[in-house]
């Protein structure tokens, strides 16, 4: 009796699990599927649910990339430029800051750490007005440098906080052992600790990448000229139109933006939940 009931329950939960999968994956599937379908199978009452070979087309990607409304190539260049620069700045600046906060004891250390934590809680949305005025005042509107500076400052607290955790994870004793063996302090750090930190740097860098790549609000305020657009702003031009939206092209554009973000995200997803759990289960 109990066995039968358990089997019924198992089947029920199995069905729910499949349902959860479908619900979460369907929008992504629909985006990719639509992006490969010709307009006559997107519009109209007879929808195609997958791009079978006979209807498969790359026209939507052509329409997106060669859109007369918003040029694709400069947007890609801007996005890559801003993302890459942000990444380099926050990794270098964040790394040395994390070192200072973990390997040194000094007055003001605690205050700085509290500050880092609090700054993360200030919503960027609240500051768009003053940020716009300041960047404008420095003549940096519509420039990669202007946007990069804002992004770097925005991502930096998180970077310092995360790297600090990684550096703390490498025991100081390892370095000290190397120093006893005759390494200089810098040498011990460079040869022993740094290699152990590489995964942490990669993970933190990927986070910074995703942040800068996906960011929308600040870019909207700072990069107003068409040639200064980043990819999220470029994508926005497709849905902004007054005439009927070309959904095939929008989905193709969405796929193009999502691919790098999704790939990089999958690399580091394992690290995102770990930190919260390890300390929190103690109760």
């Amino acid at each position: 009796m109990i066995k039968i009931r358990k089997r019924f329950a198992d089947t029920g939960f199995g069905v729910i699990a499949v349902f959860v999968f479908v619900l979460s994956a369907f929008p992504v599937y629909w985006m990719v599927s639509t992006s490969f379908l010709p307009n006559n199978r997107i519009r109209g009452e007879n929808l195609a649910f997958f791009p079978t070979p006979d209807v498969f087309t790359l026209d939507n990607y052509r329409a997106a990339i060669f859109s007369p409304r918003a040029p694709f190539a400069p947007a890609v260049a801007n996005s890559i430029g801003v993302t890459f620069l942000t990444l380099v700045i926050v990794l270098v600046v964040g790394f040395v800051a994390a070192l200072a906060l973990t390997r040194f004891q000094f007055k003001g250390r605690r205050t700085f750490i509290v500050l880092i934590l609090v700054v993360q809680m200030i919503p960027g949305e609240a500051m768009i007005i003053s940020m716009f005025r300041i960047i404008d005042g420095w003549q940096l509107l519509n420039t990669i440098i202007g946007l990069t500076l804002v992004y770097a400052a925005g991502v930096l607290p998180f970077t310092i906080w995360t790297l600090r955790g990684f550096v703390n994870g490498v025991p100081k004793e390892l370095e000290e052992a190397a120093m006893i063996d005759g390494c200089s302090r810098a040498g011990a750090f460079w040869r022993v600790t740094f290699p152990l930190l590489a995964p942490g740097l990669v993970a933190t860098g990927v986070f910074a990448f995703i942040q800068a790549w996906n960011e929308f609000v600040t870019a909207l305020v700072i990069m107003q000229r068409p040639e200064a657009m980043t990819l999220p702003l470029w994508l926005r031009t497709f849905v902004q139109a007054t005439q009927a939206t070309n959904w095939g092209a929008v989905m193709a554009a969405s796929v193009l933006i999502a691919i790098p973000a999704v790939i990089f995200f999958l690399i580091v997803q394992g690290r995102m939940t770990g930190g919260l759990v390890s300390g929190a289960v103690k109760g």
Partner: protein
Amino acid sequence: MSSTLLDAPAPPRQEIRRKRRPPYLPWLLLSAAMVLLGVLTGFPLVRLVVMSFQEYERAQLMGQPAEWVGFDNYATILTDVDGFWTVLARSFVLMVVLVVVTIVLGMLVALLMMRVGKGLRLLVSVGLLLAWAMPSLAATTVWGWLFDTQYGVVNNLLTKITGDRWFGYSWLLDPLSFFVIVTCIVVWGAVPFVAFTLYAGLTQIPEEVIEAAQLDGASAFQRFRLIQLPYVRSIVTVLVVLSMIWDLKLFTQVFVLQDIGGDRELTSTIGVYIYQMGMAQGHYGLASAIGVIFVFVMLAIAYPYVRRTLREEEL
């Protein structure tokens, strides 16, 4: 390594060197971060507060000197029942709905992952990861397409299922269904993080505890309420605070759905309202005052989280 014994004098030399280490070295290492944060977070914050006390309109943008007006901007904002207060109330109601739905669904999915076998768990994880990884802007366009008035798959399926004609039904025009779609987008993107985190927490509960309860005749719901929930309570607290912060800051989803076909007047949340007031209409002073209020609200919400983190890090 084996030379440790031979180099006996090495440790004292290190001692001496350590003493000579200059005290300004940590500050030197921090200097770049301090400059960056000071100039691009501190300064904008100060500027925001200053502007909130000034009459700052398009004319000031063109170079006219900004006049000090004291608390006038705040008075204007705080007496604007139809504008500011409505937006604030709307943002808070939306936030509460989003947080409750996200946490409840996240918990249910986490429990589901505990219950099903390895294969199904992997299947659920793959789906969740896809939803989680999608950039919010791309996610918004996709959901906008799912609910498209003319050709959206939702209207198409509803027509097939109910037999009524749903083609041409606009989901975004009515504020209520607009926010239903916003809720779909946000919850869809946020449940994975909550579910994975809670699942990770639930797996750390010793199996014997659950088994013992099972032997004592506790029902599944009792086991959840009396054992699992207390175990992950502190994770839930953190998730609630983080979700509150993220959901109150909501911008991209609302802004882009408005682009696709919503009514800006009736659907703006705080962030979007600041943008409209400042960037679109040019009332920079008023928008700054709202920004300052927004910062305070946010810090108040984040306070317990900040305190808890600091305690945990034993600082």
